[in-house]
């Protein structure tokens, strides 16, 4: 059963648009799937390889802007952004890795946070390239019907899932986890830790960038504050994986469902304003205390809790 769970989820998602969802609901599900893809990409670097990034907006934004700039500067279809962002973001991640991967633990996290913010400021100021704060508007939408976008992001997320799953069963996966558990021990076992951390960063970055390129195509408008957002991209990505389950294959998907719908729900409470963000802070604290491995990681614990007789039976 457990083995086929991803297939069942995929089959369910494949037929979901056929039941006639409203355009609004379809939009929500598209966001869920897009965030699952970003979460899985982050999970590869942070959850499995142990390099916790607070700046995944950098990769998301570069992917989004690859699409945007191809359209804005070169008058190409923004769909070219999806394949081309793989090359661009991989190169970008590699260069970034040369700087940030020299650092360990909290220093790495802070450096990635700074990098994300630097990319936002750069995008705001490189007017000749990005159009600055005005952003980029894709004037011709490919489809009005969201169903097409739905299947494209579903294909991207499925591919992301398969890449992560395949990698984690191979030599690279063992090396990633070894690096997470103890870098010095990994090094003494003949693992070139710098190289494998670079690989993790490049793959994670590229997968995030593809989702970013999709975002440009789907939303039709990007600006630096949206795609390089510290809170709305980098932190939300971390929240999704923390809630769903760090270093689990399906955790990012579960986390994305909860976070996307919860965000929508909380935002709709009248008179709350930006205070709705405090809600996520409280949620994160509760998750860290009670379900440190996330919903998927601590599923047994949750199951015990709901059994007759409670946790002590």
């Amino acid at each position, binding site marked *: 059963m457990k083995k086929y769970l991803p297939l069942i989820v995929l089959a369910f998602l494949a037929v979901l648009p056929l039941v006639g969802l409203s355009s609004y609901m379809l939009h929500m599900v598209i966001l869920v799937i897009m965030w699952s893809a970003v979460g899985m990409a982050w999970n590869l670097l942070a959850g499995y390889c142990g390099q916790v990034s607070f700046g995944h907006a950098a990769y998301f934004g570069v992917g989004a802007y690859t699409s945007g700039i191809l359209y804005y500067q070169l008058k190409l279809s923004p769909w070219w952004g999806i394949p081309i962002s793989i090359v661009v973001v991989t190169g970008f991640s590699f260069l970034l890795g040369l700087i940030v991967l020299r650092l360990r633990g909290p220093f790495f996290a802070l450096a990635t946070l700074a990098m994300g913010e630097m990319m936002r400021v750069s995008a705001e100021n490189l007017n000749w390239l990005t159009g600055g704060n005005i952003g980029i508007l894709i004037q011709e939408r490919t489809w009005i019907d969201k169903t097409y976008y739905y299947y494209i992001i579903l294909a991207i997320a499925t591919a992301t899932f398969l890449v992560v799953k395949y990698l984690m069963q191979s030599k690279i996966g*063992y090396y990633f*986890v070894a690096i997470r558990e103890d870098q*010095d*021990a*990994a*090094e*003494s*076992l*003949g693992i070139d830790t710098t190289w494998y951390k670079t690989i993790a960063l490049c793959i994670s970055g590229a997968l995030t960038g593809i989702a970013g390129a999709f975002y440009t195509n789907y939303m039709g408008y990007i600006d630096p504050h949206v795609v390089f957002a510290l809170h709305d991209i980098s932190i939300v990505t971390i929240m999704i994986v923390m809630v769903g389950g760090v270093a689990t294959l399906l955790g990012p998907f579960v986390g994305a469902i909860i976070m996307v719908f919860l965000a929508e729900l909380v935002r709709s409470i009248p008179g709350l304003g930006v205070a709705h963000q405090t809600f996520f802070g409280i949620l994160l604290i509760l998750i860290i205390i009670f379900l440190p491995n996330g919903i998927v990681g601590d599923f047994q614990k949750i199951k015990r809790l709901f059994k007759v007789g409670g946790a002590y039976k």
Partner: protein
Amino acid sequence: MSLLEIRNVSKLFGGLAASSNVSFTIQKGEILGLIGPNGAGKTTLFNIVDGVYPPTKGQVLFKGQVISGMKPHQICKLGLARTFQVVKPLQRMSVLDNVIASAFLRAKNKAEAVEIAMETIRFTGLEEDKDVISRGLPLGKRKKLEIARALATQPELLLLDESFAGLNHSELNESIEIIKSIKARGITIMIIEHHMKVIMSISDRIVVINYGQKIAEGIPQEIRNNPLVIEAYLGE
């Protein structure tokens, strides 16, 4: 040609000389014991040989090639593996996965890595615990896991840093048997150990270090009667 040659190696930490002008060689096939009082610089010497620290002065040669200045993973690839005194299991991985991760160094694919790992686990007597998450292992088994992991990289020279410390009597005998069978496989061993009875019985030669300097070298019988060694351990 000796398998490992330590040539006039010094290591300074600020003003403290953790090693000063140490030279000795290890011949293929032997067990070399490295002893000395606490803080004498034994582990520092291991860290220099295995590439964690570059020496301040001097060189380390492995199979005739200068390895000082290389990174630990490069040195490991050449055929030199080590264990840590403070054990470093890959905590949230099972015992088997720990060993598979290191077996990948020589294995062409996963099936081969699993095969090497299983063979090593049987050899070190960890078969019953192969699916245990290594965080939950008792110390004696963690020490064995360190050895298994180092062996799975298929080294020519194995550095063992206090693999016997904290073991009970039966674990101790088991570990001695393991060391002897590692030697029988043709793997050269350099071992740091405080347990005198053990080191005297398994070592072919012994090097004694005190305050970072080599004070004696020879077969166990010579070391036992060396006045400098007795002074270092018992005082004047």
